[in-house]
């Protein structure tokens, strides 16, 4: 079978003996054009780009991402704009993986098949659905697989060992480990050492799996976690956009700098 772009990126990082840098921004924050510009810029440093499709009633997002989603929705961002952003980005960066992240109701209203068709047409490589846990997600995950779209399973510190094994067994090319009990953007309330201990326990179950860590990672903590296969930074980037808008600065150049610095800390 042909290797997914997501696998190829992890393979490359393995060879370079470093963890993959994964960014999260919200599609349409603070508008469609800036969103495309941001992706174009930060993709020079980031290995995989997560793109949130905003929902107005998120049950697992912290303040920063809520703020970004709110800005995007205020600008009238619809799913079709999200796919437009992906398509435009992919035209110039065909091999850079894009993962859409969001809540299931938008997919439910759009229709699962319809949604996946749009994913395929625009070049989406993977999906993270926050409120569609295992095993309820089996059906949809299989549909994704058939379309060669990665369905990315989540594992949390509360996930039992038995469950972790089952999730890993049914996972695709990437698994997301949530660092701590928190919504997105909470401060790291567990030591990086403890996070890595948990991480390694999971990693040992199937060392070949690309297991990434996310939630609470910033420029202050990223280097202490760099033994992981991949690291996701999200809220810090959303906050950067918020702050640059507040100060009348250009969010695109600001974000470029921040992501460049994050990358420097893990290579």
């Amino acid at each position, binding site marked *: 079978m042909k290797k997914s772009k997501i696998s190829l990126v992890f393979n490359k990082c393995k060879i370079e003996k470093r963890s993959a840098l994964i960014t999260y921004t919200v599609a349409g924050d603070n508008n469609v054009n800036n969103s495309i510009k941001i992706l174009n810029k930060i993709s020079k440093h980031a290995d995989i780009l997560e793109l949130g499709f905003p*929902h*107005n*009633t*998120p*049950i*697992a*997002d*912290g303040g920063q991402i*809520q703020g970004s989603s*709110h800005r995007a*929705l205020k600008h009238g961002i*619809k*799913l079709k704009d999200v796919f437009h952003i992906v398509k435009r980005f992919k035209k110039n960066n065909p091999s850079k993986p894009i993962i859409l992240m969001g*809540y*299931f*109701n*938008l*997919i*439910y*209203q*759009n229709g699962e098949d319809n949604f996946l068709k749009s994913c395929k047409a625009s070049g989406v490589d993977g999906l993270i659905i*926050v*409120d*569609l*846990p*295992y095993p*309820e997600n089996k059906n949809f995950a299989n549909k994704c697989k058939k379309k060669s779209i990665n369905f990315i399973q*989540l*594992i*949390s*510190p*509360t*996930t*039992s060992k038995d*469950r972790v094994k089952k999730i890993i067994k049914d996972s695709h090319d990437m698994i997301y480990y*949530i660092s701590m*009990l*928190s*919504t997105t953007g*909470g401060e790291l309330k567990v030591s990086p050492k403890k996070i890595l201990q948990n991480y390694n326990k999971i990693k040992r179950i199937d060392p070949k799996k690309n297991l990434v860590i996310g939630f609470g990672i910033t420029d202050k903590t990223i280097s202490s976690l760099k033994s992981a296969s991949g690291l996701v930074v999200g809220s810090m980037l959303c906050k950067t956009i918020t702050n640059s808008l507040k100060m009348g600065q250009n969010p695109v150049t600001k974000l470029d700098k921040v992501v460049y610095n994050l990358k420097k800390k893990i290579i």
Partner: protein
Amino acid sequence: MSLKIKKNIPLIDQHDKNYMYGGKFGGNFIPETLKKPIDDLTKLFAKLRKDKKFINERDYYFKNYVGAPTPFIKLENLTEHLKGAQIYAKVVSEANGGAHKIYNATVHCLIAKKAGKKYVVGDTGAGYAGKMLSMAAKKFGLNCKIFMGAKDIKRQRPNADAIKKNGAEIVPVTTGSQTLVDAVSECMRYWVSNCDTTHMCVGSTVGPNIFIKICAWSTAQISRELIEQIKEEFGKIPNKLKLINCVGGGSSAAGFWNEFMDTHAQFIGVEAGGPKNSKLHAAPLTNGSKIGILHGAAQYVIQDKEGQIGSTESISAGLDYPGISPLHCFLKDTKRAKYTSVNDEEALKAYQLVSKLENISPSLEPSHAFAEAIKLAPKLKSSEVIIVNSCGDSLKDKDIIKQKLGSYIR
């Protein structure tokens, strides 16, 4: 395929292995982090509800703390005034704290104790769910935090004050519409971050399945009392009986109807129609909303084509919610219950009429149910019986009523 409700199985247990009612309502659309705490709570509750000792404990507190049974009275003057069906009220507002939310709050605190949790958190709209949880938490020695929309804190001040007086912390929620929907979201987000130490109480029959179950199991006390009171009053269940209840999340209605599920009693649920001619009605069952996912469960919900949850507007904070319990979606689709809506003005008028004629004074939520009763009664024969669940007291709405009607009577 038409949905059927199964006989002799409690309503809350009529779900499939994915916790879906009728294959399409409910479920657990939750972040991975909550899987384990919800699983633990599900197992604990399954054990407790079979445990005689726990049931005795529940009954003890319902009797001695909540004050069971609440009165069942005939509204002689209203019946006389409307000249139709006989109108009765189950005066649930006589329960400790003034509303049905005390049943759910008490049971949640008992469960939290069994689970060894020292902290409880909950959402509130009208403020009753928060007030009751703070009361029960104090009684059972638990620390309590209540999430309440900033708009609701302002318009339901008496209850907000009560929460603080009970020693609980109120967290004002300033996102979105600053009402119940945002309070529930914020409370769930808080629980995601603190589920290792904290027990969460959802204030109505909404949310992930286990919260629907615990809540409806708790409010079922209302109909356990009522069915006895009815038999005492009439000797049997009257041939033509309508049980009318307002529905916000649906916890009072679910509890009011539960014991009558397999009988011929008719159920009418009344949603909030919002201001006259408003498009922002909080009536997903009446106004043909589509199924969507809100707060972890599939249900009829007010939303746009994309799946963004819609805003609602109602004079009654307790009914001002875009979703509705999966249990009521199921009751609607099985045609076991009928749903309708009443607008702000009709609810206010009903409050006024009932308060003037009778010794009870319903809050704006049950006033919606009374408005429907007032519409129906004159069309029915005197042999027919209507019972309204008067599940809240108007005192908490004094300011709104004064502002809208110029004066407040009770």
